[in-house]
């Protein structure tokens, strides 16, 4: 039952990801990425990470992708332009490259021991908001504070970079 759910979500995620590559219009790629994010968020819930799943939708699908869609609309990005492909040979490289990466991954993951998810309720509660909140503010306080400074830097940088000259 869980395996069936996993397979459905995995197929949806991979199909949406492939759609990103196939589409010429960047807006369709962005919308496909939103689909992938939704499928991965559902997988997070299966992995008992409810808070991260909600964060994925709120932050990633709800804010970052809106930013992408805004920029695509603002620049009125046309579809992929035909002719200028100076690096055509890269396309022929893509398939063997992908096959090599996947082959390596398969080889490594074959030897991963087939462990199951721990069934104890204590282990099931690590994904709850309370547990993440407690760890975020005690054990992992320094990365949290550094991240907030990072965001401040990003805000300042984005404003400065996107400004027109003479503003």
């Amino acid at each position: 039952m869980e395996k069936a759910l996993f397979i459905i979500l995995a197929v949806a995620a991979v199909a949406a990801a492939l759609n990103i590559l196939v589409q010429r219009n960047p807006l369709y790629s962005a919308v496909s990425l939103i689909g992938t994010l939704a499928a991965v968020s559902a997988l997070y819930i299966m992995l008992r990470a409810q808070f991260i799943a909600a964060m994925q939708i709120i932050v990633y699908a709800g804010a970052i992708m809106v930013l992408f869609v805004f920029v695509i609309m603002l620049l009125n990005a046309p579809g992929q332009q035909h002719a200028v492909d100076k690096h055509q040979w890269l396309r022929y490289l893509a398939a063997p490259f992908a096959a090599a990466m996947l082959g390596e991954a398969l080889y490594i993951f074959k030897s991963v021991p087939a462990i199951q998810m721990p069934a104890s309720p204590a282990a099931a509660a690590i994904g709850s908001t309370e547990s993440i909140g407690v760890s975020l503010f005690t054990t992992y306080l320094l990365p949290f504070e550094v991240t907030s400074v990072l965001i401040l830097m990003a805000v300042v940088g984005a404003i400065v970079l996107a400004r027109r000259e003479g503003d």
Partner: protein
Amino acid sequence: MTDLFLGWIIKIVVIFGILMTAVAYLSYMERKVMGWIQLRVGPNRVGPRGLLQPLADGLKFIFKEDVIPRDANRLLFAVAPALFLVPALMTFIVIPYGSQVTVFGRTINLEVTRLDVGLLYLLALGSLSVYGIVLAGWSSNNKYSLIGSLRSSAQMISYELALGLSIVGVLIQSGSLDLVRIVQAQGGWHGLKWNVFAFQELGFVIFYIAALAETNRVPFDLPEAEGELVAGYHTEYSSMKMAMFLMAEEANVITSSSVAVTLFFGGWMGPGVGRYPWLSLFYFLGKVFVIVFLFLWIRFTLPRFRYDQLMDFGWKILLPAAIINVVITATIAMFFPGFFGS
């Protein structure tokens, strides 16, 4: 297992049916209330006292021609209204409508499902409804639509922050993200323990103003006001797609009211709920009705904000107020542990 599924499906069908009827009759209520506030009678020709007006409106929409602009992006044009409507409807899965009732010997909880992170789920759906507007404006291939949708979505994402922060006060007080537990924490003391009286007055005001902005209602409805931007992001829409946008707007009103009632007004709590559990359903519906009336009252009383005034208000006044609310609530929770009883 099948029991669980059957329970879900029955509840979802019932709620969906009631919701679609409520959305249609909210438009009727709106026009009637508008009429009374403007010292006239609203629609009263179609059916007794105009009660069949939504039916007539629906038929009119079905018979209209579905026009798609020539250079519009057809797929996104068709999908956008659905993208706007679906998140508004999906919030009704986590809202508790009543306490436990016994029907034919089975105890059923009057909520479709109970999520551990119910509050975060609501915020997530609020974030997702921006896409309907953004894609609607862009795919219409019309500069008024595009400007309207950009303004509207910028407004929505700005006020989402204040919305989320105003909910944090409730979270601190109730100690849980689970909506069922939040409602249960507001019981007792004859209604004085409702969050809106128990120290979240500022939180409720901020939540309500942010909800007005999120649902694009007056006084924040510049992006879709006629006379300003033709009709904003739904300029090019006609027939059923337009009907879906209007339904989505009414559904958003009902959603925001239900969430406000659950978080701030004690949900289904009321006198006598312990002995007669079915009363809880009526209390919930009554409270939602009052809050929806408040939405309509504000709509027909206040003039609308200019767009820059709107953005100023959201970022410079509402957001600091929400942060102050969180700081005060957190300070009380820290220095008087157990004050909030959780």
